[in-house]
């Protein structure tokens, strides 16, 4: 009704109606939106502030301003746990499982999208169905399997199960069907390129942007993985960051400055990555969900 009215009216009048619609309703909407945004930021702000204070300040007063104990907290932490080792472990585990699951995912997706072999539909439906099964179901069997294989407390126990990621297959298959015409593959065949060469040199580069978007998401998922490493790894120097940070609480529960700093170190990189890639991250979540 408003838009129809506005179209017939001179600009001055339009402006007035705009002003009117900018009334209580809109102010209320913005008020709610901004409050919610503040609630989203405050815990992380407090985390940063508290990581710069010493125990005495944290235990006695509420403060909204940074203190001077960041370096002391850091040295205190560094003398007790090697958080950078946890960082490196997380990077290694998340990095390798992301690369592996993306490459295998792309291979599988390409196989399903471009070859009409027998049992294709059945196998693909089976693959989709596995996405509905909660991972904890496999946890105890996995523990037994890796204990038999002698792979408990090794990175392989975390990386191998993550390599077969059904969601990645599903996601990349949608992309291949939308963006890689059969003609490209056929012309490569006419030029007598092998099937895997065609995949590695022609298809994979075209998939680049989609895989990059998915890669960020897979990486974050793997980085945040907590239960599997908690169960399958035992050595303090092999723990990824989330497990290390959680255990620090048990060991140094009264050392608040250290705890806040530990949490901060585990979250700040995510804040940085997110502020660079927020559009892609949100986009890849949305894309995956709607196609599902």
């Amino acid at each position, binding site marked *: *009704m408003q838009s129809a009215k506005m179209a017939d009216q001179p600009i001055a009048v339009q402006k007035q109606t705009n002003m009117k619609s900018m009334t209580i309703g809109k102010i209320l909407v913005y008020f709610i939106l901004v409050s919610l945004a503040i609630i989203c930021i405050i815990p992380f702000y407090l985390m940063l502030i508290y990581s710069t204070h010493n125990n005495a300040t944290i235990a006695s007063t*509420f403060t909204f301003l940074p203190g001077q104990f960041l370096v002391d907290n850091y040295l205190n932490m560094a003398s007790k746990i090697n958080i950078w080792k946890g960082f490196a472990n997380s990077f290694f585990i998340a990095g390798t499982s992301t690369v592996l699951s993306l490459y295998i995912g792309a291979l599988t997706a390409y196989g399903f999208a471009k*070859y009409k072999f027998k049992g294709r539909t059945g196998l693909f439906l089976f693959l989709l169905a596995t996405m509905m099964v909660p991972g904890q179901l496999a946890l105890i069997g996995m523990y037994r399997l890796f204990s038999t294989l002698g792979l408990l407390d090794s990175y392989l126990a975390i990386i191998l199960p993550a390599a*077969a990621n059904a969601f990645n297959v599903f996601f990349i298959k949608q992309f291949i069907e939308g963006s890689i015409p059969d003609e490209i593959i056929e012309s490569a065949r006419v030029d007598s390129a092998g099937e895997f060469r065609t995949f590695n040199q022609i298809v994979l580069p075209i998939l680049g942007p989609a895989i990059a978007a998915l890669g960020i998401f897979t990486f974050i998922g793997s980085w945040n993985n907590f239960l599997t490493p908690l*169960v399958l790894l035992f050595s303090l120097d092999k723990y990824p960051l989330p497990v290390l940070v959680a255990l620090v*609480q048990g060991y140094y529960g009264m050392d608040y400055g250290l705890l806040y700093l530990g949490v901060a170190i585990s979250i700040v990189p995510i804040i940085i990555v997110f502020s660079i890639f927020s559009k892609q*991250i949100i986009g890849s979540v949305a894309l995956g969900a709607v196609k599902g």
Partner: protein
Amino acid sequence: MFAKSIRKDHYGYYFIAPFFLIFLMFGLYPILYSLYLSFTNWDGITSPEFVGLGNYIAVLQDPLFYKTLFNTLFIWGVSVVPQLTVSLVLAFILNDKLLKGRDIFRAVYFFPNIVTAASLGLLVSLIFDWQSGGLNHFLVQVGLIDDPINWKDDPWFMRLIVSSILFFQYFGYSMVIYLAGLQGIDPSLQEAAQIDGAEKKHIFFHIIVPMLRPIILFQIITSIIGGIQIFDQPFTLTNGSGGPDRAAMTSIMYLYNVAFQSTRFGYGAAVAFCLFVIIILLSAVSFMMTKRKSSS
């Protein structure tokens, strides 16, 4: 002959083989092995001893199993209802092209979703700490309370905190999924309704909600699967203990305790499969409920 040489369909098997090999070994086999272990007693050292349905009978008579199941469903229910409704309304608001700062709001609301759940649980635990927590100091300073409140001593409050963390982490995520769904709705539908004089709330209830029904179902089912698996946040929030009277001990925390702390792996596996059955039942119920609604 040329046509035959161009047919390469059997190559499909080579392409999908690595995935299925890895999946069979490290996905399916452990699940089936868990199923087998659920019929045995296994302490992690000696070989498993077959006990038939013994573990399942014991699980179904275990008060702690029901308690942790109640905790999980309570925590999930209290967080998921506001999460799915608030995020739907937010998506509707943020889908409005005239709204300023849409992208910033979206990014800020989504951000908690990618923060490590374990770190977030610990952070909330620190903020709610009785003596050192920022919240008590703030409330005392503002004059709302005289003495610090021992938040973490109250079972119901602990459950509500976990629910709040989940809401905090997932409302932005649901919002993004709703937004993606909204983008699939023909804008001319809304415009036509506007021209016919429909108010925003009518458009919301009579156009947006019915059109988004498949997405809403998707959200409910994925949130059931995710909800039963709640672990990281209550685990770090309560330092692994489950809080006062084990009020914030979820089903998966119970599974973890039984299997990996008490090394009763067979019993833990039986707990896992009982939970799986519950997930399937809940998903089927919500599927049928949304089906019935759309046909009526």
